[in-house]
């Protein structure tokens, strides 16, 4: 178990920390403390996740029966569009960077804050404004184009809420850009003395790679959405065939960002997993340099594969071939990470606490989702399963089985640091298992039903697919319950949880050398870093030390 007692006496924990310096709404809404901004993001992403989840529930409700008998098809189109927009742009993209990235990066590198704290707060406001705009559009009628906004449907034929939604996503995109910019500069210029690049925690490496993608990719979808809105409002015809425009050009511009975007969603999660496996195996991470390098490799290669979303669009077959082989290649660095995490756990002093349960779940489910991704990289197979539930299952395995599990694992791992409290271990394990079971029951049947030919984005389907769909909906209900339980006990723990020690896990890392919760300025004295990261004693060294 942990080397230090997890509890802390109440008297000591009343000392000033970032949570109790300054009360009142203004002190939170005008904060420039990265830790408070992280909490603001936590509230925001939880809110939008709940909305996206409600829409998912509506979708699964409709799909209980083969007939389209709960919603009209136009309404159903709005359901999956809103689910996608809310989840992708207002939960997945801002999620781990906004919450864990903001909270941890300065702490992990021994800094007092990020490079541009006021810009950080602006990022949060842009995110919220963008999200609320998109929500406004949803409430007032909703968009039915799919989260991909393909033209000319979105620019000519669908309803006008595309404009408001597009503007909302555009604004939120700037939040992502500024966050990436902030993290990039912070990691380059504010590491503590002695912390060279090869002593930096792997979570920071993955956030660095994520920042590269945010900076280079997001502007392209920003201009694409701007052109979409301009086309809609001013009847420009940039993507409308009737005026000489090319819808495939829209797809090129859209996916140039939206493929790397999925790596914005997974790289921070991978960084979390790196931290979790080393902490709970109490062993230095296997292949630190390979994991760090693979993060940067993923960030770079991710920009060269977007055409695999367009194999059936009319894109050149030769371009398709090149995109296909590059898509196979981009799987390699991810696989390297999986090997290294497994090797870290191997012969480690493994402690199966809740964060590690999530990490192990991630490794298995991400591998599964990733392998199906390789299947999709194959041109021939992709054409067969394009726009079926096979695709839906593939990306949910990665985004939900991967990213969300890592997010929850990280939330549990750093919760004592963030809140100064311990969550209840029993209920945390219960919810981890409920989530794992619910997830697999929801999405595994979708691989089968998709391969058999059930299309996505349809609210009716042939009778023979019903059993699998019922399983999927049942799983979704279980998954939903699994997500509610942590919401309850995390909130509960803020008031009634046992107070946490500075380092309840006995883990390495500068963030554990501050009090739980940390004071506003993080470190009274800037630490100096010596020695390698993840400097756990191996068994032999421990024995030799007596």
């Amino acid at each position, binding site marked *: 178990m942990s080397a230090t007692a997890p509890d802390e006496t109440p008297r000591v924990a009343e000392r000033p920390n970032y949570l109790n310096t*300054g009360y009142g709404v203004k002190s939170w809404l005008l904060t420039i403390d990265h830790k408070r901004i992280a909490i603001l993001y936590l509230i925001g992403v939880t809110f939008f996740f709940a909305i996206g989840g409600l829409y998912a529930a509506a979708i699964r409700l409709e799909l209980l029966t083969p007939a389209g008998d709960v919603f009209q098809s136009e309404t159903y189109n709005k359901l999956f569009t809103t689910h996608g927009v809310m989840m992708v742009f207002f939960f997945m993209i801002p999620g781990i960077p906004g919450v864990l990235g903001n909270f941890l990066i300065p702490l992990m590198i021994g800094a007092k804050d990020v490079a541009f*704290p006021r810009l950080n707060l602006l990022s949060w406001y842009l995110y919220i404004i963008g999200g609320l705009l998109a929500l406004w559009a949803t409430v007032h009628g909703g968009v039915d184009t799919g989260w991909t906004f393909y033209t000319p449907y979105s620019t000519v034929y669908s309803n006008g809420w595309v404009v408001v939604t597009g503007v909302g996503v555009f604004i939120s995109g700037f939040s992502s850009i500024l966050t990436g910019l902030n993290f990039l500069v912070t990691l*380059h210029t504010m590491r503590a003395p002695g912390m060279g690049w090869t002593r930096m925690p792997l979570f920071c490496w993955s956030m660095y790679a994520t920042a590269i993608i945010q900076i280079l990719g997001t*502007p*392209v979808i*920003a201009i694409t959405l701007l052109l979409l809105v301009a086309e809609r409002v001013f009847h420009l*015809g*940039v993507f409308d065939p009737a005026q000489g425009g090319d819808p495939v050009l829209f797809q090129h*511009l859209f996916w140039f960002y939206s493929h790397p975007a999925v790596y914005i969603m997974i790289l921070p999660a991978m960084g979390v997993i790196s931290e979790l496996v080393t902490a709970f195996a109490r062993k230095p991470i296997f292949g630190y340099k390979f994991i760090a390098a693979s993060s940067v490799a993923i960030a770079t290669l991710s920009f060269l594969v977007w055409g695999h979303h367009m194999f059936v669009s009319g894109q050149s077959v030769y371009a398709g071939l090149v995109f296909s082989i590059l898509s196979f290649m981009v799987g390699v660095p991810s696989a390297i990470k999986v090997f290294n995490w497994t090797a870290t756990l191997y012969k480690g002093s493994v402690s199966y606490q809740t964060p590690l349960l999530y990490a192990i779940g991630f490794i298995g489910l991400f591998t599964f989702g990733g392998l199906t991704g390789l299947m999709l990289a194959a041109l021939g197979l992709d054409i067969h399963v394009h726009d079926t539930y096979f695709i839906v299952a593939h990306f949910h395995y990665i985004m939900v089985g991967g990213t969300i599990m890592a997010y929850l694992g990280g939330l549990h791992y750093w919760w004592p640091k963030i809140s100064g409290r311990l969550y209840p271990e029993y209920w945390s394990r219960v919810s981890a298992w409920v989530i794992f079971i619910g997830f697999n029951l929801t999405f595994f049947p979708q691989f089968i039903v998709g391969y058999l030919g059930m299309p996505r984005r349809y609210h009716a389907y042939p009778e023979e697919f019903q059993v699998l769909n019922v399983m999927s909906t049942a799983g979704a209900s279980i998954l939903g319950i699994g997500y509610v339980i942590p919401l309850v006990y995390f909130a509960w723990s803020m008031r009634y949880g046992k107070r946490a020690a500075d380092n309840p896990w006995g883990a390495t890392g500068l963030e554990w050398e501050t009090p739980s919760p940390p004071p506003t300025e993080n470190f009274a004295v800037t630490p100096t870093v010596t020695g390698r990261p993840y400097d756990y004693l191996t068994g032999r060294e421990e024995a030799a030390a007596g």
Partner: protein
Amino acid sequence: MGAHAAAHAGGHDSPPELRHHFVDLPAQREASTLGMWAFLVTEVLFFGGMFTAYVIYRATYRTAFEGASNLLDIKLGAFNTAVLIMSSLTMALAVWASSLGRKNLIILFLILTILLGGIFLGVKVIEYKQKFEHHEVPGPHFVVPLNEKTHQPLPPQSEMFFSLYFCMTGLHALHMIIGIGLLTWLIVKARRGAFTTRYNTPVDMVGLYWHFVDVVWIFLFPLLYLLGRHTL
């Protein structure tokens, strides 16, 4: 905040421009500079999306684009190019003056830059107005223009050229307006004596932004105004 005051107990010996989370002014400057360059990278990709659309459509509709391009006023375009280059010079001189803390010179060069930027925007207003009058604005009122030389109607995809023209120069003009706003803010700060030999980072950063906007125009001018002249 109590903790903050405690950290600075024993007198405030750090310069007023130093933000508390930076170790010293050079570190702050390094971060600001890297941050501004990273932002300019995003701008490259932001404009880049439209340049991509331009490349594809120009290759596809070559005659339409060449013909439509010749309808732009090359004198105004060249004049504006010269004006913008001049404004880059005055901006560079403003940065130079700020590195020496010479307040009056800083303000002079900033005002000149704003004036030149204003002239640029004024010319753009004139150009846009001409387009409206000639029904060259894409949309329901667009009328396919006539080729300058042959006086035959251009291909209908000439409308696409104008769509890109307005989007690209419009976005560029918006960046100029924002730049003028930033320059005004700099003047206000300069008048308060904010820029000294020790600290001129804001002027330097706005300078980078302004020069970037100039670089965008350096590419917009030939691509939009010059590409079809050889057919005349």
